[in-house]
């Protein structure tokens, strides 16, 4: 447990025996920790380990049932987000929490408690507001226009706004701010993550950071000390130099990692690819993209946001139109390629914006699973609830979905578990031939990522072709049988992984 060395300075934050229950569920079973100024603390744990609850207590959204919170040595109670913010705690949320209809400057300023530059007696002084925002943005090296509406920004830029807002809390006080980064990298591209890591180093110079991430390599790279949570308890508090990734994984999950390395099969030259794309172009998005997806193989596409790979993947699934080029299925060209037809032909798509495109949040998990392919659950147009529930229950067991309640509305599951359900929806199709995966591991903890990857591999082994837009280059190298690199809408390189062995650096060079 927490080791306290004798401290010359009082910690910025100290929690002692903090407890929180929801009904019969003990989310936090007495957590004690401390964070000193200038420290970057890594906080890891599987989905459901209690991290979110802990963070919500730190940000004043939940009030603990027991235990104490000390800020700079003084016992404090956070009655609401405003108090936490006033105490210098800022947060960058996992699911972005910006007002898309307001400007960058406003979103930065609209921070609870933080003093309100740019407003006087409730009136806005836009010039002062924009200036303050520019200054804050400058600290993190962003050149965003403070007058832009957040809804018009890309995801990365929005993340910068979130960080600026969290830092913004500080500028009002001389104290040392504590910035909580709640899985900020889970939705970022590789290069974008580098920017964030630079920010973390900057934050260290004037405050402290709690960095929550599922990517153990990032945690290892950026943190001074790592806290591991499991089942509502803090199970380890280690100085980074003294642990390895494998150890951390074991601490988190309670067992050792057993991800299997993919076995690569060369393409049978006589086999017709299930899906072929020839010279696909869309003005301003991508030009002349060709690829072939074979049964039992994974085709990974890498590239930055703006490389056009998302658009290509959506075009393959019929979710977007293209200007010219052809898509062939089993060697014959398809016409009128739209989602319904694609689904009929055995294509599946796991979108990156699963909340928007991948699921019906208000439906139960079971209903979501049989939504597209009722399979055996349906007799003609009628879905039989008991059969549906059995199928859903099987998938829940296979994918270890938590909580194990197929009747619960999908909205109420955590991101990782939602992703499992979205995947199950496609895997439930016995006729599944091509699976297009847009960032399937986004926001998933390592345990969940492992489960999802296993399922993808199983589908491949069963003869499906997979088109994968990976989160990380490592993931692409690990999963891909073929890798396409895209830049500015064009394919800049292809690697057949049965013969080539590119490094991440090779890929990067062709991406940017």
């Amino acid at each position, binding site marked *: 447990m927490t080791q306290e060395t004798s401290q010359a300075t009082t910690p910025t934050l100290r929690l002692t025996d903090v407890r929180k229950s929801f009904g019969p569920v003990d989310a936090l079973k007495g957590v004690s920790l401390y964070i000193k100024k200038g420290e970057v603390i890594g906080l890891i744990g599987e989905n459901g380990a209690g991290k979110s609850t802990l963070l919500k207590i730190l940000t004043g959204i939940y009030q603990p049932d027991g235990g104490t919170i000390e800020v700079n040595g003084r016992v404090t109670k956070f009655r609401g987000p405003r108090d936490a913010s006033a105490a210098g705690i800022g947060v960058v949320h996992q699911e972005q929490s910006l007002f898309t209809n307001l400007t960058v400057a406003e979103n930065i300023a*609209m921070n609870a408690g933080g003093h309100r530059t740019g407003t006087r007696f409730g009136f806005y002084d836009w010039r002062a507001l924009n200036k303050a925002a520019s200054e804050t943005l400058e600290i993190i090296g962003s050149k965003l226009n403070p007058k832009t509406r957040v*809804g018009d920004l890309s995801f990365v830029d929005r993340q910068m706004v979130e960080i600026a807002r969290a830092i913004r809390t500080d500028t009002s006080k001389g104290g040392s701010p504590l910035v909580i980064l709640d899985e900020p990298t889970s939705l970022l591209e590789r*290069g*974008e993550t580098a920017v964030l890591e630079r920010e973390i180093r900057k934050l260290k110079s004037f405050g402290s950071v709690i960095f929550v991430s599922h990517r153990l390599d990032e945690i290892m790279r950026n943190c001074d000390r790592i806290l591991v949570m499991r089942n509502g308890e803090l199970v380890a508090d280690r100085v980074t130099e003294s642990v390895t990734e494998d150890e951390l994984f074991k601490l988190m999950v309670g067992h050792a990692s057993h991800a299997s390395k993919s076995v690569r099969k060369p393409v049978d030259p006589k086999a017709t690819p299930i899906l072929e794309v020839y010279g696909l172009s869309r003005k301003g998005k991508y030009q002349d993209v060709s690829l072939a997806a074979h049964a039992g193989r994974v085709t990974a596409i890498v590239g930055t946001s703006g490389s056009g790979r998302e658009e290509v993947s959506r075009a393959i699934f019929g979710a977007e139109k293209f200007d010219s080029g052809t898509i062939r299925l089993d060697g014959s060209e398809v016409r009128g390629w739209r989602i319904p037809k694609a689904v009929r032909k055995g294509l599946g798509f796991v979108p990156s914006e699963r909340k928007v495109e991948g699921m019906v949040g208000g439906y139960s998990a079971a209903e979501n699973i049989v939504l597209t392919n009722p399979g055996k659950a349906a007799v003609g147009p009628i879905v039989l609830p008991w059969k549906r529930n059995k199928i859903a229950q099987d998938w829940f067991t296979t994918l270890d979905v938590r909580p194990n309640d197929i009747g619960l509305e999908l909205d109420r599951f955590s991101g990782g578990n939602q992703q499992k359900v979205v995947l199950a929806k496609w895997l439930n199709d016995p006729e599944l031939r091509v699976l297009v995966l847009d960032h399937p591991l986004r926001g998933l903890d390592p345990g969940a990522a492992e489960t999802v990857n296993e399922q993808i591999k199983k589908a491949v082994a069963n003869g499906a072709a997979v088109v994968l837009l990976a989160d990380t280059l490592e993931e692409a190298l690990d999963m891909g049988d073929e890798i396409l690199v895209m830049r500015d809408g064009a394919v800049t390189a292809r690697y057949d992984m049965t013969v080539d062995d590119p490094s991440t650096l090779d890929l990067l060079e062709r991406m940017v």
Partner: protein
Amino acid sequence: MTNTLAKPTGNVSVDTSELSSAGLTRTRRNILSGIGEPVALLGALVVLIAIFSALNPRFATITNLQNVLNQASLPIIIGVGATLVILIGSIDLSVEGVMAASGVAFVLMSANTRGGQDMGIWAFIVPLALGIVLGAANGLIYTLLKVPSFIVTLGMWFIGFGIATILYGTDAYPELTNETLTQWAAKIELGLPNVFWLAAALVIVAALVLRYTRFGRAALAIGNNEDIARANGMPVRKHKVTTFIIAGALSGLAGILATMQMGGTSNHIGEGYLFLTLPAVVIGGTALSGGKGGVLRTFLGVILLTVLNNGLVLAGVSPNFQSALSGAILVVAIVAAAWSQRGRLRIAK
């Protein structure tokens, strides 16, 4: 667009320039589509005006302009309140009831044909206060008891109507005896009717409030995402109640003005205003889901609807066809105006 894509730097870590390229293109498109809708609406209005002017030269006259603006004024005033409420993601159906209550209170407290005392300035203050109280009741019940605003305000509609019925009693129809009051609304001042100046002033104030005050921005924020607003420590309930109070006060004001326009009132004074105003708000482009839109758009929406009905009368369209025809024209105008926005639904948040 100029090439914002960076050359390979050889350095693994950097990137902001090329990363934000997608952001930049998107920004440009959205700025266009952002103003695209009002501009298209304005375009639809111009087309209507051109057609109606061609059909009847009397359409494009100062007299008719004054007439149209006079007719549009009350829906505009009510529309300001309705827009604010819709922006926070709620709805206020109590408009007609509040108008009835304030209108009857106003006429009975002014010099009128039923006799009674002329209460002077109180004849304005009390009905406005009535609107504020009903609006506050809307807001408090909605936020404290967590009853959907649709239901609360529907109830308040009937409560307002009931208050009006009780106040009205069974005596003769009361008429204002003070000519200054009855003539004020339509009186031409600087070329336009008084009541329009009042409506325009309210629109401008509301637009400024939405743009320049913490309350206004918070209203937009609440409409965009109430949970985030709450997590940010915004006084969500206070802002919501305030919004309903403003809407109630404006409905009260509309009741007074409608009574002045008619020279008298019954408890039916508000009839028809709700379903004149709500479509205008939506046609203007304020999203019923909240967070998007504004009072200037509502202004345009009301003007469009008023011009449409006025133009059809002046064009001599048979009353039998007017309703169907105005509906058809509206659909065409809105589809045309929303054309630039049609892709927006696909932009994920």
